[in-house]
């Protein structure tokens, strides 16, 4: 059956109709439906159908379709092959879970339909982006996601769109950089189609193109310096958005493109300048973001900073340009999607029951919500890199690659792992441990319903599965897709690394216990780091948005605007005052020669004659 579906999709323009247009249409329909059961059924059905299509495409041997569209090499060309169809499948699975979660979450709340509309259009755009082979068309779908991002962030915030604007500007800047990168790359390669490109060397103008495209790709994923809207979104946007976008979908897109850049478009050598630059960005992201996460007292904000930090691992892995690193980065992305989505879902579950995610307002929920707590614990262990969960294995691959490149990067990654562990210990004990404290008016806390619990459980199980049986994802799915025949599955081959990682985890535990003892409670377990001398000043500045690149952009924009205003005033002065004044002055001056006196006229005339004679004499 799968083959018949895939061949059906492969004929004519069915790819476009069924992978791109159909989700959009379903989104519109769901927007108009107000009935909850109907919405649930239609949402699940359409997500399942999309999954079916994606799986069939993955199982087929792939095809390449070209639809002539416009001049200048801008054809709609789709390349459905192993790598891209794998990601289509990942997205489809993720989407199914997210839709179930969202529909249940939004029951009884406003703007459910609008949210679903944007989600489905985003799905359509993402399908198109994964399938497209032509960089111009890729850009079109990429930009489409910008619109839906903006739209979702405007839900509930129509009058205070600060997050939406910030996200638009930051993501827009990343997209502009990517556009520039695409233009330079296309110019260097002579074509817009990735499959027709030979790997370009990273030198000269191509280096600029590489840098821009890379920045655009990882910026979309949420790496620094395009990250600062995500914590804001954690406060303003609905939780299912956090589940979907910063956790999962954007990571898929960004890392997909980053991997393709390094694998197909540019020839990045390990140890080259480009590689080091990318790794630096990755490491910085890891450390700085998790440092910020450490001090947060709101669950969603904390999780969003972690989302940023984890991207650093992926970027670091891909930036090494070693096969082990690329594989590690992509695997880490997959794992991250799984455990971060699960974590956000638990946060949403808590929010549905207590009405808030502010850790200062509740604690000790473990007794009332045991299932949520279990899922949380599993995902937290995964993200901290505790064996034998999936996070451990992907982190080990990245550590291996980082150590092979340079010890500095390895140490940075290790530091990040340390702080990740600390912050999750704090979060877990603060939210679910300790004595029960509930916000006022919410005494009736109980476990969430099956609609919320089911997706969480599936993801938690996947965490365990992909860790224990990591042959399936690594050698079964990712290996063939990337085209790397080396087997990375099984226990990491370097025992030293494992020992060091475990040691770091134990150190984190000790530090957490010490900190909570010292500052009075799990919630304040990280305060001794927060208020350490030197770090305290940096944290203060960060809280005041001094390090926020968005604020820098705004300042620059204000400066440019002031300069333009000054120039404009100068030009207006020139036209309104200067020119007019000169002309009037000249006219006034001349009028003195023409004042009605005949003798003056004659004088002027005679001197004119003399002038002419003089001119004649001069010429000859």
């Amino acid at each position, binding site marked *: 059956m799968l083959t018949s579906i895939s061949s059906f999709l492969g004929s004519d323009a069915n790819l476009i109709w069924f992978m791109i247009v159909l989700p959009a249409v379903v989104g519109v329909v769901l927007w108009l439906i107000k009935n909850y059961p109907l919405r649930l059924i239609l949402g699940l059905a359409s997500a399942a159908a999309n999954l079916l299509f994606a799986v069939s495409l993955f199982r087929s041997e792939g095809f390449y379709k070209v639809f002539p569209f416009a001049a200048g090499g801008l054809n709609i060309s789709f390349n459905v092959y192993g790598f891209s169809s794998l990601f289509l499948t990942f997205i489809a699975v993720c989407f199914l879970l997210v839709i179930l979660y969202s529909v249940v979450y939004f029951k009884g709340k406003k703007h459910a339909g609008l949210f679903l509309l944007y989600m489905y259009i985003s799905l359509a755009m993402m399908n198109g982006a994964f399938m497209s082979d032509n960089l111009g068309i890729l850009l079109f779908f990429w930009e489409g996601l910008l619109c839906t991002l903006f739209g979702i962030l405007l839900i509930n915030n129509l009058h205070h769109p600060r997050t939406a604007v910030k996200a638009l500007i930051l993501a827009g800047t990343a997209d502009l950089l990517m556009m520039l990168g695409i233009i330079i790359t296309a110019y260097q390669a002579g074509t817009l189609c990735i499959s027709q490109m030979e790997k370009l060397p990273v030198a000269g103008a191509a280096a600029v193109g590489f840098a821009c495209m890379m920045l655009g790709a990882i910026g979309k994923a949420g790496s620094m310096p395009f990250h600062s809207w995500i914590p804001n979104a954690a406060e303003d946007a609905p939780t299912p958005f956090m589940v979907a976008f910063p956790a999962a979908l954007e990571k898929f897109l960004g890392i997909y493109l980053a991997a393709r850049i390094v694998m197909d478009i540019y020839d990045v050598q390990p140890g080259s300048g480009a590689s080091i630059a990318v790794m630096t960005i990755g490491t910085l992201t890891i450390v700085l973001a998790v440092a910020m996460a450490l001090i947060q007292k709101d669950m969603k904000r904390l999780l969003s900073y972690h989302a940023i930090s984890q991207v650093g691992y992926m970027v670091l892995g891909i930036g090494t340009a070693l096969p082990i690193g690329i594989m590690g980065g992509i695997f880490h992305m997959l794992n991250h999607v799984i455990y971060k989505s699960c974590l956000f879902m638990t946060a949403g579950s808590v929010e549905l029951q207590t009405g808030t995610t502010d850790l200062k307002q509740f604690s000790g929920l473990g007794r009332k919500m045991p299932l949520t707590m279990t899922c949380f614990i599993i995902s937290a262990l995964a993200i901290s890199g505790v064996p034998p969960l999936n996070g451990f294995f992907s982190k080990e691959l990245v550590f291996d690659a980082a150590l092979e490149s340079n010890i500095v990067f390895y140490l940075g990654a290790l530091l990040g792992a340390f702080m990740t562990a600390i912050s999750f210990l704090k979060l877990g004990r603060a939210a679910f441990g300790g004595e029960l404290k509930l916000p006022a008016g919410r005494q009736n806390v109980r476990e969430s319903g099956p609609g919320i619990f089911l997706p969480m459980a599936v993801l938690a199980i996947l965490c365990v599965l992909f860790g224990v049986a990591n042959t399936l994802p690594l050698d079964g799915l990712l290996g063939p897709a990337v085209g790397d025949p080396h087997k990375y599955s099984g226990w990491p081959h370097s025992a030293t690394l494992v020992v060091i990682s475990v040691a770091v985890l134990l150190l984190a535990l000790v530090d957490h216990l010490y900190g909570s003892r010292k500052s009075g409670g799990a919630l304040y377990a990280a305060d001794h780091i927060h208020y350490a001398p030197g770090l305290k000043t940096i944290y203060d500045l960060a809280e005041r948005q001094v390090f926020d690149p968005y604020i820098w952009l705004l300042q620059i924009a204000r400066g440019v605007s002031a300069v333009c205003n000054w120039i404009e005033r100068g030009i207006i002065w020139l036209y309104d005052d200067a020119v007019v004044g000169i*002309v*009037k002055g*000249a*006219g*006034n001056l*001349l*009028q003195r*020669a*023409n004042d*009605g006196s*005949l003798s*003056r*006229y*004659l004088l*002027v*005339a*005679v*001197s*004119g*004659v003399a*002038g*002419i*004679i003089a*001119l*004649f*004499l001069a*010429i*000859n």
Partner: protein
Amino acid sequence: MQVIEYTTLLVFAVPLVILLINILLPRQLAEKSSIGLAYLAPLVQIVATAAGLVQIAQLKQHEFAISWNLAGAVSVRFAVNVFSLVLLFCIGMVTLAAIMVANRTVPQKRAGFAGLLMMLIVGMNGMVLVTDLFSLYVFLEIVGISSFVLIAMFKSDTGLEGAFKYLVMSVLASIMILTGLAFVFMQTGSLQYDQVGAAGGALVGPGAPHLALMYTAMALMIAGFAIKTGAVPFHSWLPDAHQSANTAVSVLLSGIVIKIAGIYGFIVITNFFGRLPGIDLTLALIGTVSIVVGALFALRQSHFKRIVAYSSVSQMGYILLGLSTGSVLGLLGAVAHVFNHATFKSTLFTNAAAVHEQTGTYDINELGGLEKKMPVTSFSSLAAFMSTAGIPPFAGFWSKLLIIMALWNSGDWVFAAIALIASIFTAAYFLRLQRKVFFGKLLDKFAQLTEIGGSVKWAQIMLTVVTIAAGLLFPFALRYFGGIGIL
């Protein structure tokens, strides 16, 4: 052959005949009907020259005598060619417009006015038709005297003063032209165009004293004709004369007299002696300075007619620039601009007459918002302004384009650039005029204003139609002239 002969004969004879009739009629009848009778002269002239233009295609030049045939070869005859016919057509058109305006603005002494107008027409026609420098001078004098009297005859204070200034400067011009003529005669022994032209080529070259004499002659003649044209720095009489004369006379003066008396003289004398670099440079300099200075002056004026008069000074500069290139394209552009200037300048003075008749003032600071009450005047003024500024599809665009192209082709791109930039000034002062007089809010005292009627309105309509038609048909006209081999 026949048509041409009739053309030229009519052009010469009809005004004289009308004059005779005018003189012979009893006084009362003459006063009433003289202007009406005077319409015949320009109408006949227009028709005759149009017919002649069609016929002249076959031959380049037609020489003829009047009343008796001339035997000797050295006799001086009248001659007519394509350019003369175009100029004759202009004369007819402007005179027609002037008579239509005079119908309203000349209350007394109509017979005298008509008679002098006929003399002026004959004088101008004669200037265009002769082939001898001395005869040119004679007819120039006729034009000068009749225009002087036309300015002065209504004996207003300013009229007499303006006429006197014009007279004095005109006399200076005549003296200089005559002296120049004399020097040329000394060298070449003849004053006929072809003989002077033939001898001129030989004079440029050997012999310093001869050359100095020739250059002095050229300088004097240029200066003389420049005074007649109203080019800077010889322009000073022009605004005063235009302002103080009756508006019908202003139409004549600016519309045709300064061009026939001045520009045609330039065309004649620059065709001798080959292309001396001194002459070209002098013409170009005078032209450029005229354009800029005329425009600068016009920007400061607040009397309707003075603005238009200074605009004439400026436009004469364009024509001189066209002549200074020495190429056929430049000459064509210059003559085309003569035609266009005749049209739009007459329109503007007619508008001045209309405004004055209805509102009683020429001061633009006291006027405003007239377009609501005087739409025809306003529209024709707008059309004239756009033609002057060189905006397509009005006629002025083409002639300006030709002149600038000719300048560019002959390498004088500095002058071309200045001419182009000065177009901004042209637009500026006319826009100012337009805005202050016609646009804006209608002042309360003009609430009862009506459009001018009668012949003045028809004059405006006719001239506007000519402007627009000339602009639209210009390419075809160029092609026609190219077909008959002028270009």
